[in-house]
């Protein structure tokens, strides 16, 4: 059972990383501001954003349908959500809070030099708040693996 738990845990970790990266790319590449900065074709950044959205949607559906543990025995499911995992989840949310604060500070500082719309600022802070805990959880779960 232990091997199965470790495989499923590793799979969940990898999926979270893919999901977080896809979410960041989807959100950031979709910004008009990003296209302006990149100086590239708006159609290209839109395509990248759409592709990332596709990745994100697929990983979200897989995670929601299987919850990463489809077909696993009850003992394995319990082990995949044991006390260490719950603690890591809480720590990841705490890390997400700090990531959001830092993102807000960066956006605020940048707004002194570059014009940043309010909705863009909010979007960037939300992206940091969503992706931060996911990446932090994946890192914590990978520790001592």
């Amino acid at each position, binding site marked *: *059972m*232990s*091997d199965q*738990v*470790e495989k499923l*845990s590793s799979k969940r970790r990898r999926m979270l990383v893919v999901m977080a990266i896809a979410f960041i790319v989807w959100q950031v590449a979709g910004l008009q501001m990003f296209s302006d900065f990149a100086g590239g074709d708006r159609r290209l950044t839109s395509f990248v954003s759409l592709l990332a959205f596709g990745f994100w949607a697929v990983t979200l559906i897989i995670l929601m349908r299987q919850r990463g543990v489809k077909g696993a025995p009850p*003992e394995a499911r*319990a*082990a*995949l959500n*044991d*006390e*260490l*995992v719950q*603690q890591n989840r809480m720590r990841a949310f705490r890390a997400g809070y700090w990531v959001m604060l830092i993102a807000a500070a960066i956006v605020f500082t940048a707004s002194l030099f570059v014009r940043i719309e309010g909705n863009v600022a909010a979007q960037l802070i939300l992206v940091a708040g969503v992706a931060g805990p996911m990446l932090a959880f994946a890192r914590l779960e990978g520790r*001592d*693996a």
Partner: protein
Amino acid sequence: MPDHPDLQTALKDYRQAAGLTQADLAAKASVSRKTINTIENGVFVPTTVLALRLARVLNCRVEDLFSLRD
């Protein structure tokens, strides 16, 4: 880095005395092997419920498994 540097654990000794691997103990306590590993290394401090469950599996008292440094 340990959550509670004052806490010391004898879980590894009791587990080995019982002839169990980390994976065996993890399966009996319905946790992951990583959880057992982090408890043994002092990185993770289990709740009272899990400590009691581990003590039950290893047929000893919680105080045998966990104690405070002098």
